[in-house]
C-alpha cells in the first residue's frame, strides 16, 4: 500500500517532468500574472471572523482545554508492541486497571500490535512514578516489547511548562524588537498581532482535535511563529518598498498591489511547504504525527491567511503612511532605488 502510493507519486512526477522537458506544457503559473484581487475590501469580513475565531479559540482553551501530554502534567507513557501480533486491548486494560494506579488510558497506536499506555501522575512525589512503571512492567510481563517508556516527574513537568511558555514569549518579544529596528513600530505591532492571532488559532485547533500537547508542540508553535513571520515580513518588505516609491498612492491600493505582487510567491512557497509536510504527515510515522498536523494547520492554513488578510490591512488602522501624505512629493518617482542588499 505504502509502496504503491510512492510508486504512483513517482510516476506522476516523471510524466510531469517529461512533459515540461518536451515543451508540451508551459511552466506552471499558479497565479496569473495580472492578478488584481482586492484583498483590502475583505478586511471588513476577515477582521470580525478572525476576532470571532480567536475568541472561540480562547474559550475552547479554557473550557475544553488542551490534551496535555506527560511532558507538562507529569506521569508515565509506555508504548508497547504485542509479541503475538495483535494486542488484546480489553485484557490489557483489565490487567492494568487492577493495579490501583488511578486512571490508566490505553490506546491503539498505529498498527494493531502497538498500544500506547498512559498512567496519570501518581501522588507521592518522584519515587512514586518509578514504582508505577515497575508495576506496569511486572503486570504485562514478557508478552510485549517495550518500545518506549517515558516517565516525567512533577518537578520536571512544571519546569518544562514554564520554560515552554517563557520560550514562546521570549521568541515573540525578540522578533518584535528585530522588526522594530528593521521597519517602523507599526509594522512590528502589526506583525505581533498577526502572530499572536496565529498562535491563538493553532491552540484552538489543538483544543478541538485534542492532539497531544507536549514538548514537540512547543517546537511546532515556534516554527509556526517563524514561518508566519517569514511570510509577513516578505509582504511588509514589499509594502515598505512601495511606500518609498509611490508617495501619493492611497494606502488600501498600495497594500493591494503589494499583496498581489507577492501572491504568486506566497502560494508557490506554501505549496512546497505543504508538499514537504504532507510527506512527513503520511510517511513520517506516529512519533511526529501531532507535530506535523499542527504545523500543517498553523503554517498552511492560518499563516498564509493571516499575512494577507490580517497583517497587511491592519497597517491601515495602525496609521502607516499617514504622515507620508502630508509631506507628499510629486508622483512618478522614477529613480526607483532598489533596496540595498549586501555584497
Amino acid at each position: 500500500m505504502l509502496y504503491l502510493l510512492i510508486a504512483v507519486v513517482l510516476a506522476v512526477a516523471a510524466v510531469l517532468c517529461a512533459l515540461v522537458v518536451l515543451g508540451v506544457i508551459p511552466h506552471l503559473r499558479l497565479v496569473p500574472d495580472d492578478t488584481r484581487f482586492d484583498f483590502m475590501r475583505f478586511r471588513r469580513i476577515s477582521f470580525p471572523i478572525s476576532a470571532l475565531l480567536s475568541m472561540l479559540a480562547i474559550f475552547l482553551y479554557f473550557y475544553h482545554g488542551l490534551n496535555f501530554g506527560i511532558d507538562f502534567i507529569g506521569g508515565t507513557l509506555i508504548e508497547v508492541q504485542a509479541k503475538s501480533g495483535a494486542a488484546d486491548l480489553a485484557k490489557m486494560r483489565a490487567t492494568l486497571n487492577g493495579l490501583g494506579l488511578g486512571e490508566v488510558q490505553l490506546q491503539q497506536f498505529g498498527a494493531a500490535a502497538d498500544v500506547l499506555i498512559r498512567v496519570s501522575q501518581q501522588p507521592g512525589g518522584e519515587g512514586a512514578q518509578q514504582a508505577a512503571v515497575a508495576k506496569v512492567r511486572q503486570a504485562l510481563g514478557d508478552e510485549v516489547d517495550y518500545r518506549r517508556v517515558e516517565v516525567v516527574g512533577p518537578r520536571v513537568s512544571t519546569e518544562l511548562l514554564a520554560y515552554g511558555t517563557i520560550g514562546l514569549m521570549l521568541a515573540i518579544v525578540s522578533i518584535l524588537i528585530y522588526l522594530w529596528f528593521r521597519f517602523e513600530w507599526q509594522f512590528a505591532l502589526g506583525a505581533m498581532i498577526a502572530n499572536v492571532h496565529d498562535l491563538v488559532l493553532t491552540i484552538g485547533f489543538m483544543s478541538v482535535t485534542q492532539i497531544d500537547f507536549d514538548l514537540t508542540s512547543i517546537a511546532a508553535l515556534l516554527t509556526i511563529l517563524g514561518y508566519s513571520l517569514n511570510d509577513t515580513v516578505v509582504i511588509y518588505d514589499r509594502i515598505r518598498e512601495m511606500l518609498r516609491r509611490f508617495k501619493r498612492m492611497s494606502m488600501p491600493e498600495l497594500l493591494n498591489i503589494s499583496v498581489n505582487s507577492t501572491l504568486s510567491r506566497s502560494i508557490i512557497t506554501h505549496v512546497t511547504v505543504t508538499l514537504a509536510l504532507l510527506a512527513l504527515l503520511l510517511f513520517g510515522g506516529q512519533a511526529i504525527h501531532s507535530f506535523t498536523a499542527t504545523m500543517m494547520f498553523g503554517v498552511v492554513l492560518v499563516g498564509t491567511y493571516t499575512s494577507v488578510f490580517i497583517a497587511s490591512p491592519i497597517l491601515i488602522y495602525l496609521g502607516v503612511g499617514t504622515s507620508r501624505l502630508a509631506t507628499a512629493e510629486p508622483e512618478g518617482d522614477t529613480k526607483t532605488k532598489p533596496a540595498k542588499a549586501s555584497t
Partner: protein
Amino acid sequence: MLYFSPLKAAAILLTALLVCLCAVPNFLSERTFQKLPRFAQRQIVLGLDLQGGSHILLEVDSAAVKKEKLQNLLDDVRRTLREARIPYTGLAVRGDQVEVRASANQQQALSKLRELSQPLGGLLSATGQRSLEINEGGGGLIQLRITEAALTERIRQAVEQSIQIVDRRVNELGTVEPSIQRQGVDRILVQVPGLQDPTRLKEILGKTAKLTFRLVDVTGSLEEAMAGRPPPDSEVVYGTAKEGKHPYLIKKQIMVSGEDLTDAQPGFDQRTSEPIVSFRFNTNGARRFAQVTQENVGRPFAIVLDNEVISAPVIREPILGGSGQISGGFTVEQANDLAILLRAGALPAPLTIIEERTVGPGLGQDSIAKGKIASYVGSVLVVVFMFVTYGVFGLFANVAVAVNVAMIFGILSLLNATLTLPGIAGIVLTVGIAVDSNVLIYERIREEVRHGRTPITAIDAGFTRALATILDSNITTFIAAAVLFFIGTGPVRGFAVTLGIGIVTTVFTAFTLTRLIVAYWVRLWRPRFVPI
C-alpha cells in the same frame, strides 16, 4: 549582482565543497572511518530517540545534604563545648539552624564556637565569606546558621562527587559509551545508548551505598529501644525485607565505613557456595577493624548498608588480615551489584530519578526508516514541483537545495551534533525554506521581466531585491530557532539545531551558489528571454 571575480567564484565553490565533504564520514563503514585522520573523525550522533537507549535525569537531594550538614554542625558544637568543658543545655537543630544555651559562660562558648566558622574557598580566597553565621540571644542562647554560600558550595561539591560516583557505577555495568553530564545546579543527566531495560541501572543509581560496620549493642534492651527509649549511643536498625525486617539494637559509633574499602569483588563462599562479596580494607581500616574485633571476640557486629542490616555475624576470632566477606543471602546478581556499589563508593546524598525516557531499538529503527521515506518522498515532490514551475531555473534551485542539505549534514558532522527525529523534521522544513529563497528570487525576476526589462537587468534586479527580503525573513526565523535552542532540551533542541543551521546554509546558498550558477548560465547562453 551577476559578476563574480574568478577568485570569489572559486572561494564560494570551495567552501560549499568543503562543507559538503564533512558529511562524507557518515557514509563510511566503521573500518574505513577508523582509518581517517583524527581531525576528520567527525560524525553525526544519532539521538536516543533514533538509536534507542535510556535517558535518566537524576536530582541530588539537596535537602538531605542540608540536613546532614546541620547534623554535622550539631556534632561539632557538642564536641567543642565538651572539650572546652563548658556546660550547655538545649542543643538541637531548629529549622535551619543549630541552637544551644550556655547560660553560665556565654562569651567563652561564643569564642570557642566561632572557631568552627571557616573562611570559604580556601585560604587564598578574598571573598571574606565564612561558613557560619553566629548570633547570640538572651539567656545564653547561641544560634549557628550555615551561610547560603557555604550551603551552595557543599551542594556543588555533592553534585560533583555524585557525578564521579555515578560515572563509576554506570561504567562498571559494562554499558557502551554512556554519557554523564551535569545539568543545572543539582541535576545529573545519564544517557546510555542501546540500553533497553533500565531497571537494573535505576536500581544501581538509586542506592546511596553507605556501608558501615558497627557493633551490636548487647547490653541495652531492644524492647525499651523499640518503644522509643533507646540508649543514648545506640539506635534501632532493621534487617532486610528478605530476613523479615528483624530489628537490631546497634551502636551509633562506626567501627569502619565503606570509605575504608579498597576493593570489593563478588564471589562464592567456599563452604556453602552461597554468593558473597569479599572486600579488602585500606591500612587505616584494617588496623581499626583488627583492634575492634580483637576487643569484641564472641560478640556480634552488624554490616549496615543504607540503614538496613545486611547481616549481623558473631566475631569468632580477631580479623587481622584486613579483608573479609559479606554474606546476606544474595543472589548472584545482587552480589555483583553490591560489589559494584562498594567499589564505586557511597553517594554524598541520595539521588532521585525525576525523568526517564527509554526508547527500544525497534522504535528507533522504525523512526529512522520512516524519516527516510518521508524525506525522500518530500524531496521528490518538491524537486518535481520546482522543475514544473520554473523549468531550467527550477533545476538550478534543486541543485542549490541539494547542496544545502549536504551542507547541513556537513555542519552537523563537524559539530558532532545529535540528530533526533524532530531534527529530521527540521531538515525537511529547511528544504521548504531553501526553496522559498529561490521562489522569492525567481518571482522577482518574473516581475521585473513583466515590467519590460531586458533579461540580464531583470535577473540582476531580481536578485538584488529578493536578497534583502530573504535576509529579513530568515533572520526572523533564525530568532525563533535560537530561542528554541536555548530553552529546549533533548529532541526539541535537536530540531532547533537543524533549523538554525539550515537557515544559515540557506542564506549562504541563496547569496552565493544560486547566483553563481545563474551568472554562469547567463554568460554561457546569453539568453534573449528568461525561461522562467
